[in-house]
């Protein structure tokens, strides 16, 4: 690719990615959080969290971890960010009666529904990411797509670590909102966290976080 065209494509990519600075995360909107964080702000703190915690893990490729965290939600440029409550949440989050009813209980799906949900989400996000990076130089495009697949499918130690970092940042944000606004079902969240974190460094972080914010 000639240099001018390459830079032009990179600028297009950055303009698209810039939309994530404004994209308010649906989960917080559903919880009626005022001025909730955006996808870009989640990525920013998740990357910092990945860096500081990856230092405690022997043998992890930190450069890979950081790049993976930076790109893990880029697919949301062209698709919605999915919450654990989807597809039960109504499209119109102003329908408070329906939203509150959904948020009251941790969603319970059958195994078939769970598999279908994961599969559809993966396909939608993969398609969206490919669209976003389509104009980029081949090597960059492949690197982003491969990092995302490693993350999404947990295909490497780094991928499995970043997957939990993503959720740990989400948990931290949830607990901050709970402290500030009290609108988060914090007991449900704590239950969820105890079932999903299994990386020893992240489990320690989660326990320290609870001690600091909840006690």
């Amino acid at each position, binding site marked *: 690719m000639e240099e001018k065209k390459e830079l032009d494509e990179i600028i297009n990519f950055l303009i698209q990615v810039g939309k994530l600075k404004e994209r308010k995360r649906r989960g917080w909107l559903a919880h009626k959080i005022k001025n909730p964080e955006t996808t870009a702000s989640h990525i920013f703190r998740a990357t910092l969290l990945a860096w500081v915690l990856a230092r405690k*893990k*022997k*043998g*992890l*490729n930190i450069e890979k971890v950081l790049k993976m965290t930076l790109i893990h939600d880029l697919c949301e440029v062209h698709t919605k960010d999915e919450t*654990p409550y989807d597809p039960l949440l109504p499209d119109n989050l102003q329908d408070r009666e329906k939203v509150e009813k959904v948020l009251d*209980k*941790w969603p*319970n799906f059958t*195994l078939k529904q*769970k*598999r279908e*949900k*994961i*599969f559809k989400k*993966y*396909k939608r996000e*993969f398609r969206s990411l490919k669209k976003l990076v389509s104009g980029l130089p081949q090597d960059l495009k*492949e690197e982003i797509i*491969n990092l995302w*697949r490693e993350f*999404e*499918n*947990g*295909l*490497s*130690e780094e991928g*499995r670590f970043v997957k939990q970092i993503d959720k740990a940042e989400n948990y931290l944000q949830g607990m901050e909102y709970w402290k500030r606004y009290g609108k988060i079902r*914090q*007991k*449900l969240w*704590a*239950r*969820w*966290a*105890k*079932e*999903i*974190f*299994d*990386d*020893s460094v992240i*489990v320690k972080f*989660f*326990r320290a976080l*609870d*001690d600091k914010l*909840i*006690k």
Partner: protein
Amino acid sequence: MTERKKFYLTKKGLEGFKKQYQFLKSIRAAKIKGEVPKIWESEDLNPEYLSFQEDLNFIETRLAELENILKNSELIKPPPEEKARFVDLGATVTIQVDGDKDEFTIVGTLEANPALGKISNESPVGGALLGHKIGDEVVVSSPIKVTYKIKKIKYI
């Protein structure tokens, strides 16, 4: 890639990793020869299979990861009858928590997928349930206390 001591895998999980390894090896061989592999269709929901036309670099990295997993794997075997009333790796446990009924299978970290009810033995809940039997109430504190009452344990 980091080295781990042991990867605990169910029979199905181990077979899945072996299948992926063989599959990627065949794709790598075809790529090296310059052959374009025919479209490979599978009913398997693992999305990894759906986009096999990867660059060689990705395939090499994944093969190295799989080799490490297979080399360090330990098969989860059903326990002897006298121990089957206790929760161990591979157990599917029906629990009652906060008024909800739920079911988990306790697996090793590589197969863990809480969204599909597969909980890692290294997670706070997975680890706490190990060694318990039907009727036990297992409290996991963090400091929010969550109590899991074990209703049923089965091994496949």
